[in-house]
């Protein structure tokens, strides 16, 4: 299907089905049950899942395939957001031109930064990208205020020109749309005690993510992808074979920058404002965390990682002491309080701590991330079956 082999088609199909059915899958608990706060099926969060999924897929094309660890990828996301919001301000509220512009601008940006940074490799490359990203952040925060609106962040306003549909702007701020279909439109569906929300914005993002995922599979399986892997495993040998690795790495860098731009554009399309903090290096660190947690160099890993971190950020951080007391109320008072005090630092506002610990454990024991973990578990089960069979055979033979 679409030039993919059977396994990849199955993977793509699975991802497509899962993203399309996400409003159901992520809302497994009835709205009035105590577990309803674990429901992640509301549009805002689901959009973040897929948007950061795109971001991580793009990052993985660079880090997973070439092994170049960029610590400045958030800069491209930020640039994408800014250009999308400018498009909303100047041209029209339609998201298509905004996204196209954000991808192009982020690509150009990545071309310049990549051209310079890729002269060095290893830790120097990380520091260079970090330096560039911090520079963009500092500039966006201070000097470029006319373009970025500094600390407040770039927002829409009523007197923006909006050449194509400026006339229709009346009393309230216009909303982003896809040819008239408003992004924030949503349909609620109630089935018994469950309620599911289908939002236009989410499905637009989901379609973009499936396309991005498809493209990533094609890149992974293409000769170009093979070349990138060759560079990762031994760059010197690639040069000795008479091939110049630079254009390949630069292409990978630009592609992943464009993915980040797409993610930034989508973020701005869902909520038309852009702030400099999206470019800060902690944001770049976040995408590194996502990719590593999910599994570097695997296709599905980054998406899983992005989902996990965003889930943590939005759901885990909401567990406060009251909720904990509710859970452990079946225990005697003293033990209940004790357990709540122990768990308290790890949830709620302290969710970063849990994330940091999980991340360290993954890097130390499971370098392949969640995907490797899944594979290991699967192998364990399969292995058990086999040894079980062998044992049975042995005993039979003995008898």
């Amino acid at each position, binding site marked *: 299907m679409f030039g993919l082999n059977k396994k990849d088609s199955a993977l793509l199909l699975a991802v497509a089905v899962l993203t399309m059915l996400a409003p159901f899958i992520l809302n497994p608990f009835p709205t009035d049950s105590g577990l309803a706060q674990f429901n992640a099926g509301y549009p805002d969060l689901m959009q973040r899942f897929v948007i950061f999924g795109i971001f991580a897929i793009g990052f993985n094309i660079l880090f997973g395939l070439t*092994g170049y*660890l960029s610590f400045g990828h958030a800069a491209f996301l930020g640039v994408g957001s800014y250009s999308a919001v400018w498009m909303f301000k100047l041209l029209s509220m339609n998201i298509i031109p905004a996204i196209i512009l954000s991808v192009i601008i982020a690509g150009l940006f990545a071309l310049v930064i990549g051209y*310079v940074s890729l*002269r*060095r490799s*290893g*830790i*120097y490359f*990380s*520091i*260079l990208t*970090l*330096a*560039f990203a*911090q*520079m963009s952040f*500092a*500039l966006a*925060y*201070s*000097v*470029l205020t006319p373009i970025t609106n500094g600390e407040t962040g770039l927002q829409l306003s009523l007197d923006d020109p909006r050449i194509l549909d400026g006339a229709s702007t009346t009393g309230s701020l216009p909303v982003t749309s896809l040819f008239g279909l408003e992004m924030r439109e949503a349909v609620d569906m109630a089935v018994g005690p469950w309620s599911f929300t289908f939002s236009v914005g989410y499905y637009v993002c989901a379609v973009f993510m499936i396309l991005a995922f498809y493209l990533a599979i094609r890149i992974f399986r293409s000769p170009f992808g093979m070349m990138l892997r060759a560079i990762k495993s031994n760059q010197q040998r690639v040069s000795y074979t008479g091939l110049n690795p630079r254009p390949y790495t630069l292409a990978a860098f630009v592609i992943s920058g464009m993915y980040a731009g797409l993610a930034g554009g989508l973020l701005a399309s869902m909520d038309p404002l852009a702030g400099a903090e999206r470019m800060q*290096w*902690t944001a770049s*660190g976040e995408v*590194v965390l996502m990719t*590593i947690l999910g599994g570097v160099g695997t296709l599905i890993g980054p998406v899983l990682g992005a989902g996990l971190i965003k889930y943590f950020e939005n759901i885990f951080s909401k567990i406060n002491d009251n909720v904990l007391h509710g859970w452990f109320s079946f225990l005697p008072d003293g033990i209940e309080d004790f357990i709540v005090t122990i768990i308290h*630092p790890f949830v709620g506002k*302290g969710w*970063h*701590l849990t*994330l*940091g*610990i999980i*991340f*360290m454990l993954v*890097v*130390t024991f499971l*370098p392949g991330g969640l995907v490797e973990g899944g594979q290991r578990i699967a192998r364990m089960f399969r292995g058990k079956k086999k040894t079980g069979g062998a044992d049975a055979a042995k005993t039979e033979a003995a008898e």
Partner: protein
Amino acid sequence: MDAIILQILNGLDKGSAYALIALGLTLIFGTLGVVNFAHGALFMIGAFCAVFVQRVLTLSVETVDPTKTDFLGNPLKVKTPYVENWFGHDFGSAIIDWSVPLSVLFCIPVMVLIGFVMERGLIKHFYKREHADQILVTFGLAIVLQEVIKAFYGANPIQTPAPEMLSGVATLAGGIVYPVWRIVYFCFAALIIGGVFAFLQFTTFGMVVRAGMADRETVGLLGINIDRRFTIMFGMAAAVAGLAGVMYGPINAPNYHMGMDFLVLSFVVVVVGGMGSLPGAVAAGFLLGILESFASTTWATTTIPGINQIIIYLVAIIILLTRPRGLLGKKGVME
């Protein structure tokens, strides 16, 4: 002329902090070959040592003073720190006043211990792995340390004032007015840097460590337990970062993410100075601190807007592209 001297002085205190952190980073990198992203967190923990000592010293006992009343007419409750009860009022309050310099004494063993635990417990397992893995795991550790501190002390900055005697301003020769504590900080930094260099240069232990930095395997073959010495160096590097943090408290109130802010800049400093070169790290630290302060003058910011924000990164990019080894980098280190 005065303006130039003033800018140099202004650059010195930040430069000292950069130099101290970069020195520790380079010590770790030069000995163990590990890129330590958690070094900023060590700096932050140092600063919170001062907060801890301050909190402990000001632990108070509450007594009711029947002779005085508060504005509602109730007997006044007076809080007296234990140290004042134990050592008398004058000496006790002097101890509290000098809590930041005193926490230096507390900080050294704590930081050395943290350094040992970190190296033996975590970093040890990453010698054979790629630099990217080392960066990632120490980055995770930095997040954890930062969050632990946040869980204990909250997200707001906590003031750790300098002793009253050292908190004013001094008028230097030429009529330059300059905060005393910054001069103290610079002298302190110079002392520590000098101490580290002297230790490496003039003691047998330092000689072995330098030999190990040059060729670890051969030193090991000579029957010297170089691993243990490197662990001690890690503890020392952690202590240097911690000391830089303790004394930085009065200049900038400690908060839980100060380490991350300094970390990025210190890495840039290390790269500019030359990976693995101790004098390079120190020189680049002071140089970039002073450059930054010159770039913050109104003259510079009006000529090139925003230059004060980006100067360090700009210098780093230019240096990395034109002189990949950094200012004083040696051949063959991390290429």
